[in-house]
């Protein structure tokens, strides 16, 4: 009985406020004459026409998401590889640190016009923009993680003759993985921003392009559906990231719990 009540309460807690907010939005805009704020009912009705019964899902949303994944994966490979190299060597770290500190501080969106010069306005430019923004949090977090590898583990690995790829994967990357994953999370949210901006600045397709196109043609209801879709995409990707984090770092959460003397 008590468990049932606790579950009911949890569900109520999760759904109550969103339900209230949506109802408020629905009711308050129901007779809205405002040009900027069409009734929520109209927006939801338009979703079907604008996104589901047209080729926009495959022509705009899919290319956006593919570019995001491509750029993100490339940034992960580059960031982790460079991060492990720089983090493992004290001298290399001292050599690179000021430059990295500067490059990281450049707001990534200003690279959109720069990379447009080099790569035009095609997919290459957009993937490069995403890579050049995502790579910094991943790289810097990997450096920090690799730097902080437990000395005792390093010595132990040496005693047991663990070296080469096995040492890299089982010792270095494994120890640094909590920081690496934190970097991935930051990188992904920057990646989404850059995906949208690169399309808003110059593009012929994509989610960001469609939204800005709706705005320019004053199709306000359609624009709202785009904003909602983009918000949903951000939420979905963050949820995926959290699932990945929980799987990849399961050992780490367990370890921390054990160190605190609690049981799982």
């Amino acid at each position, binding site marked *: 009985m008590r468990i049932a009540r606790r579950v009911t309460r949890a569900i109520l807690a999760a759904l109550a406020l969103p339900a209230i907010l949506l109802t408020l939005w629905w009711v308050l805009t129901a007779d809205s004459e405002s040009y900027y704020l069409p009734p929520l009912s109209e927006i939801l009705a338009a979703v079907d026409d604008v996104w589901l019964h047209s080729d926009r899902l495959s022509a705009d949303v899919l290319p956006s998401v593919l570019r995001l994944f491509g750029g993100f994966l490339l940034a992960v490979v580059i960031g982790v590889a460079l991060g492990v190299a720089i983090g493992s060597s004290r001298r290399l770290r001292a050599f690179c640190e000021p430059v990295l500190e500067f490059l990281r501080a450049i707001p990534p969106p200003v690279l959109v016009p720069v990379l447009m010069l080099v790569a035009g306005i095609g997919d290459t430019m957009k993937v490069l923009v995403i890579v050049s923004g995502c790579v910094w949090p991943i790289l810097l977090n990997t450096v920090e993680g690799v730097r902080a590898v437990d000395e005792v583990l390093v010595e132990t690995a040496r005693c047991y003759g663990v070296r080469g790829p096995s040492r890299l994967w089982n010792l270095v990357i494994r120890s640094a993985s909590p920081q690496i994953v934190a970097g991935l999370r930051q990188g992904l949210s920057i990646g989404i921003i850059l995906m949208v901006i690169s399309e808003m600045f110059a593009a012929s397709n994509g989610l960001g392009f469609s939204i800005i196109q709706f705005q320019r043609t004053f199709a306000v209801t359609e*624009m709202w559906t785009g904003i909602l879709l983009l918000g949903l995409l951000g939420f979905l990707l963050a949820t995926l990231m959290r699932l990945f984090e929980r799987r990849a770092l399961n050992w780490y959460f367990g370890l921390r719990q054990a160190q605190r003397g609690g049981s799982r």
Partner: protein
Amino acid sequence: MTSTLTAPARASRAGAASRAARGTTLLGVLGFATFLALLEVVPRSGLVSPDYLPPLSRIGVALAELAGEAGFWTAIVDTVQGWFLGLAIAVAAGIAAGFVIGTIPVLREFTASTIEFLRPIPSVALIPLAVLVFGSELRSVLLLVIYAAFWQVLLQVLYGVQDVDPVAQETARTFGLHRWARIRHVTWPTALPYVLTGVRLAAAVALILAITAELIIGAPGLGNEIGVAQSGGAVARMYALVIVTGLLGVAVNVLARRLERWLLSWHSSLRREVA
């Protein structure tokens, strides 16, 4: 350990440490010099076309020209203004909301799902709305900056408020401290390091969003100048402006860290570093 060392041995150890520190600085300077040299040599050698990446010397000339223009300094002021106003509002709102939600368990329980849903929504999704409602002025920039920076602060404040030591809380209660006194003397000092982490993260994000808004919406500022330079084909000028935004970013990071050190000089994490 240290007490058994003779004075000369101790001195030599200190000497080694300062030598190592000097070596690090030297390597850093060397690294930066290499970076600058590459920026000069790579375009000159034709590895990358100078049309795409002008040699550093030409960017330097463009930078010097910029420094002589009044419009450039107004652009910097515009950008910093949007950044600072947005950040200040987001920090104030984030701290207030964080303390209210964090100290009242029921509120915390009932807002968790909404916060988790709203937080990952990319603030750039609001760009078209900002353009329609506010046009290309400061208010558009502020809307984006505040939305992006607010969540960074709110989340850290919530973590911080949750981190309060229950024993300290009970002790304060036993000594008869009232709700406000408890917030002031127990919750606030515990949460302050988290608040400042939030401010540091928010400061960086706010700068990104301020410049993004200028670049995409065309609100006055450095981002807009970059867009204008790019569409006008003034490549060296564009790179000079990008460098300026980088310097601004470095300044924001340094300032945020200084603030943290200054306000947390009493905190054990910093005291240990000094000792």
